[in-house]
């Protein structure tokens, strides 16, 4: 067992733990926080199934963003769609045997890396070229794009330029899952790629990447427009009303 293997094994356990607990904590927080008033934004569906359709449109085709800005939509959607394909393609490193559809998407996933990089480059260019977007960008906004670009470039290099030892890598990850550690291949490009990925996993729950769970909890997007038909009251507002009634009864 090399020192490198121990470091990376621990790194990925920690990263996975932080990602899962961090996200779990935030999702629980969103879940538990009441929304006292009905605030869906037009066009607001009047039924629950309408809300499901609206949400699907937001997360699959970024419907509101499309209305908002065509360039950002183009780059942003390309990046996310490609990211999804790339992530799914990576499933093969974590399973044995590999599912049929995961094998099927391999060639698409391979080239999706370029689409992902192009999307990220476009988004980053906006942060420099558009004065309004430059104004609202903090260092972390640039770093996040740099991180993702770094992951994409190091990953694509291994696919297209300097192949890594995929077989050993897979053995390493299966070993992590089965708690039976196997040596990690010491290819520098691969080590950089994995380090960046672990970083991304760790910052996820503490950064703006919370938009991923956040969108599902956004009241302007997930509420049914039926305030006249159904009374909507938050628990703390009910408590307020009860207190008033007690006071009225006492006084």
């Amino acid at each position, binding site marked *: 067992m090399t020192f490198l293997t121990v470091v990376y094994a621990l790194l990925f356990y920690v990263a996975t733990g932080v990602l899962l607990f961090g996200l779990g904590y935030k999702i629980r927080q969103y879940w538990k926080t009441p929304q006292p008033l009905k605030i869906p934004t037009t066009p607001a569906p009047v039924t629950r199934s309408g809300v499901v359709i609206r949400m699907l449109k937001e997360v699959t085709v970024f419907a509101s963003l499309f209305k908002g800005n065509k360039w950002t939509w183009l780059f942003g959607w390309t990046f996310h769609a490609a990211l999804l394909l790339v992530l799914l393609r990576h499933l093969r490193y974590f399973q044995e045997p590999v599912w049929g559809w995961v094998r099927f998407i391999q060639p698409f996933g391979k080239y999706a890396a370029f689409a992902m990089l192009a999307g990220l480059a476009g988004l980053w260019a906006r942060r420099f070229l558009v004065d309004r977007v430059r104004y609202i960008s903090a260092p972390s906004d640039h770093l996040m794009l740099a991180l993702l670009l770094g992951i994409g470039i190091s990953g694509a290099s291994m696919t297209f330029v300097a192949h890594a030892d995929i077989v050993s890598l897979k053995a390493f990850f299966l070993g992590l899952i089965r708690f039976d550690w196997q040596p990690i291949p010491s290819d520098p490009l691969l080590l950089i790629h994995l380090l960046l990925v672990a970083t991304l996993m760790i910052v996820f729950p503490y950064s703006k990447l*919370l938009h991923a769970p956040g969108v599902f909890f956004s009241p302007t997007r997930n509420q049914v427009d039926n305030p006249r038909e159904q009374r909507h009251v938050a628990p703390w507002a009910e408590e307020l009303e009860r207190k008033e009634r007690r006071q009225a009864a006492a006084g």
Partner: protein
Amino acid sequence: MADFDIPELKEYPIIPHIQPGVMAHSKPFVAKPEFQEPLGYPGELVDNWQEKAIEKLGELKGKYRSLQVFLDACVKCGACTDKCHYYLGTADPKNMPVARQDLLRKVYRRYYTFAGKYFPKLVGAVDLTREVLDDWYAYYHQCSQCRRCSVYCPYGIDTAEISMAAREIMDSIGLGQKYCNEIIGKVFKIGNNLGLPEPALADTLEGLEEEVYEDTGVKVRYPLDEEGAEILLVTPSADFFAEPHVDGLIGYGKVFHEAGVSWTLSSYASEAANFGMFIGSYENMRRVALRIREAAIKLGVKRIVFGECGHAWRVAYSFLNTLAGPFDFLDPNYPVPQHICEFTYDLIKQGRLKFDKSENDHMVLTFHDSCNVARASRMGDFPGGQFVIPREIIKATCNHFYDMDDWGIKEATFCCGGGGGLLTDDLMEVRIKGALPRMEALKDVVENYGVTHMAAICAICKSQFTKVLPYYGFTMDQIVSVHQLVSNAIILTRGTEEPGGEAETADAA
């Protein structure tokens, strides 16, 4: 007259380059202790305001999911940056919705997030200093809570929610806005924003009855505090005297008259507006809303109808049931509450109203969708009813109607510039500049279709336009009420032969 430049009207809104700080001086008058205390707020800035403000932020984000999610989720994509009329009109980057949110978000990050506590520079987190508080006071009073930004944000982040929370925080540390808080105090004390007591109202309504009788020869009634009436009408108090608002009120009365239903206003709940929403205060908004419930119970009405007012309709449609419900003591056959436009539209559909459209032939009309109706509420029993119904009423009463371009109507509508508690003279500059996109849309239909008048269903819009239209080369009387058009065109068929006889028929209906 103005010590700033009035923006030049282009063919459509041009996105300006940023000019940092140009609107930092724009601040409304601060509320004196006498206006703070009746609302339950400290009279002036408390000594430990920083600590209290941070504590309040923590409390609010635990009570409002919107606030918690919106503070976290923004990715700084910039899609909202060119959507705010105040940015388009002023070019101050802090009037870009995301930058406005960031004024609060950077404080949230500093005190409530891991990244902001340990790496503040990296994520743009800052301490809550006096400068930050001054920025809050300036820029959270340059947001009309119109929600246009929310439509285009990929996560629906609604800057209105953020500015409401910020105002609630400022109120809670003793830094309130005079205009809103004074007005809310008047509602608590007298019953309406304008502070019109019962005798003044009775007098005004009597005057209206006489005026309509002289005009039409028909005794249309404008009743006040009549127990046992079927409908309680709650309308913005501007309707009681200001032009063109009052012409709308005259119209409601004529519609009720033709419908043959009995109705009444209430002197206790003589205000549809609810500025509690503007200051983000659930408690104060609820206190104002409860007056309507109490009036409805006391007068024994069966239905509640709201007059033309944008944010009032938001509070009525979206919040009233929450704040002051359940309304199980009212007639379950009608939605609670109803908008006067819904009421009129139903009658038109049933063919129960007759119009002489030529009465409005001296006007070519367009329609201004008020933000709170367009993006924060609805009418009728189908999505988009809030766009269809007022337009159908205009088309039923006028021969000439043209919509403005798609970029400035319906859910994309631009604010009048005076909403959200900004309708005060101490904010004139931001009001005028914020009206720019709407004025550009209007100019387009004026030039291309010969539009002469713009109709609206909001008291704030009407007041704001009356004031700002002249700055852009229009005249103040080019803004009209939708029910003013109804009033002009409606043919009164009841009670024409027998003056004074319709009170009985009304009761029988």
